[in-house]
């Protein structure tokens, strides 16, 4: 019942947004719908601690992992939709877009959010695929929202690369289905439900499962933004409007990663931990290394944030590769922390773009002197991103390192530490350029509007809180990690 309510709310909001012409109240309404299903999600995570919930004749299933993902989606969507009225108003005022396209924007955002919720709440691996594919289609139009040359090129690249990746993921899903049909040497009727696949996972043919898992890593890995399938990410995340980038970087990547986690459980049950670990380590370490290299000489603010997303997805993949309950719990905490932090950063970068007129790092300076609140938010966001204490990303990365040491992966810890240090230096350098100094003399100091500052500061405070006390989430995270153990 709870599950149905969580899904119906954004669906209803879609219909509302589609029926009325664009007005700011629609933006506020979408934000409140996100707050509503966030609340229901928190309630759901409490109920799933005892047992997984089912809905609609077993077509939807929520265990702790799904409930946690609903909470993540809810938090980041709330942040993003709170900025919708302001972003749309700014864009209409500056002539970048019209009321008609603003309406499309809101409808597509709600469709996007609905599809992500469906992906984490469905019991069926096929429906998981369909919803992730649907998010690709919805976000293509969102990326090209500004209708500039750069936006069109980014959305073209995005839809081509992600469609190919998703098609390969479909092939992987079909192969798992095929392996299940013939599991244990007998033919029996099968379904694509994750639970029924897991029940026969130990009997799946190793050859087929190996190929299937490799295809799934490549396929869903494209949507996660893992190297070498990442080339759409910097373009798409830098050309989209700020709330869309926040949502995509914050949650869409991790919803695709959630799909990978589910399939990883199947693969480990069928093949043992070695092959999935090796595969995920390769893509994870490669993503980390590439992101480190690209961040050093980065010139655009939003592309910098996009490459940082690739770095964090690499860290998630490494954590997923380790695969122990501690590692998975750390991964989930990291998902939440990264989602909130990235959303704050992208939204404040949207503000910076609106105030300064550019996202080039070289042309932005003296933010601390001229716009102190915004600079403070951005600065603290960056500190959170590079995983300094007391932010929650520090806790999650430390726990992941501990899990890697427990598993004997010393070399991975060493590489990660080196990369994270380099990234810390690179981001600090970029931040110093933007925040310090006097800035262009003509700009007058201004204060940030409360409607902008309050949500962002609250989000950062939540990150700190999660870093200091983990008790609200501890049982949820451990329970969720147990859910994907074979």
């Amino acid at each position, binding site marked *: 019942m709870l599950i149905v309510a969580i899904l119906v709310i954004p669906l209803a909001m879609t219909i509302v947004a589609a029926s009325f012409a664009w007005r700011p109240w629609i933006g506020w309404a979408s934000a409140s719908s996100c707050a509503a299903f966030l609340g229901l999600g928190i309630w759901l995570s409490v109920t799933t601690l005892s047992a997984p919930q089912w809905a609609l004749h077993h077509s939807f299933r929520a265990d702790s992992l799904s409930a946690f993902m609903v909470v993540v989606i809810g938090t980041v969507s709330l942040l993003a939709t709170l900025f919708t009225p302001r972003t749309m108003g700014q864009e209409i005022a500056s002539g970048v877009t019209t009321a008609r396209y603003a309406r499309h924007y809101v409808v597509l955002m709600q469709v996007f959010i609905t599809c992500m919720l469906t992906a984490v709440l469905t019991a069926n691996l096929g429906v998981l695929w369909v919803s992730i594919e649907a998010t690709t289609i919805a976000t*293509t139009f969102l990326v090209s929202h500004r209708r500039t040359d750069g936006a069109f090129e980014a959305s*073209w690249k995005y839809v081509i690369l992600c469609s190919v990746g998703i098609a390969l993921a479909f092939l992987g899903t079909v*192969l798992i289905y095929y392996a299940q049909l013939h599991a244990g040497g007998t033919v029996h009727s099968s379904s694509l439900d994750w639970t029924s696949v897991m029940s026969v996972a130990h009997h799946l043919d190793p050859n087929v499962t190996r190929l299937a898992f490799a295809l799934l890593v490549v396929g869903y890995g494209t949507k996660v933004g893992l190297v070498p399938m990442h080339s759409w990410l910097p373009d798409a995340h830098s050309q989209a409007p700020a709330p869309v980038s926040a949502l995509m970087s914050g949650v869409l990547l991790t919803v695709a990663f959630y799909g990978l986690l589910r399939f990883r459980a199947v693969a480990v049950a069928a093949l043992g931990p070695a092959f999935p670990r090796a595969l995920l380590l390769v893509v994870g370490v490669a993503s980390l290394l590439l992101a480190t290299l690209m961040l050093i000489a980065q010139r655009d603010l939003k592309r910098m944030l996009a490459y940082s997303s690739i770095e964090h997805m690499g860290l998630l993949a490494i954590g997923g590769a380790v695969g122990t309950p501690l590692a998975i719990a750390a991964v989930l905490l990291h998902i939440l922390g990264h989602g909130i932090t990235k959303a704050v950063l992208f939204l404040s970068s949207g503000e910076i773009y609106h105030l300064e007129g550019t996202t080039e790092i070289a042309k932005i300076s003296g933010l601390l002197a001229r716009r102190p609140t915004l600079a403070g938010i951005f600065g603290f966001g960056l500190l959170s991103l590079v995983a300094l204490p007391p932010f929650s990303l520090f806790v999650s990365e430390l726990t992941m390192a501990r899990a890697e040491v427990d598993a004997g992966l010393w070399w991975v810890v060493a590489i990660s530490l080196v990369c994270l240090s380099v990234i810390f230096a690179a981001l600090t350098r970029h931040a110093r350029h933007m925040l310090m100094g006097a800035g262009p003399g003509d700009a007058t100091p201004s204060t940030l509007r409360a409607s902008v500052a309050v949500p962002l500061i609250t989000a950062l405070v939540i990150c700190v809180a999660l870093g200091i006390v983990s008790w609200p989430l501890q049982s949820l995270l451990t329970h969720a990690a147990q859910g994907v153990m074979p």
Partner: protein
Amino acid sequence: MNATYISALELAAGAVLLSAVMTLWRRSVRSIVSMLSLQGISLSAVAIVLALHEHEHALLVTGCLVFVVKGLVVPALLRRVSRLDPRSRESRPLVNVPASLVFAAVLIVLAYVVGTRITALSATSATHLAPLGLATVLVGYFMLVTRRRAVSKIVGLILVDNGIALVTFLLTSGVPLIVELGSSLDVLLVVVVLQFLMVSMRHHSDTDRLTEMKALHD
């Protein structure tokens, strides 16, 4: 009855791969789109033959859906898109046509080698044809990577999707209907999206420069 079922299945599956190779061979967009139409029709024939043999109604519905979407609608959309682009011949592929054909031959052999490892699991006459679907996927991927024109890239994407659909039908006699519905609709929507992007891009500026994807970089 069984022999005609097997030969019909083999003919249809072979036609899917043959039309994939022909799209790599031909240069004019009109003949490429006709090949795609042929491929969609052969794909639906595979589904329908399998459905009739195993008496599965869901698969029959899927076959008719595939016929309409991939055999009729998608080629019609592509023809409309290509009419917007006045230069309708692929003139500068990254790999020239004879070399691409030889490369395609290599990919087909590779697909056979990989595919036989999968079909070892269940040895029916339908699953034995699965390497043909894998070969179509590889040929489509190759076309996506080595062709410069936007329409050629879309064709490559459709080939990948069709190849995967063929593998699905042959290995598992179709996945549950809801998934199949989603998959077909997805192909349709992707083509619609790409067409929309091409129209929007054309109103804006030079389409080729955008689809060569060189402007945004670090």
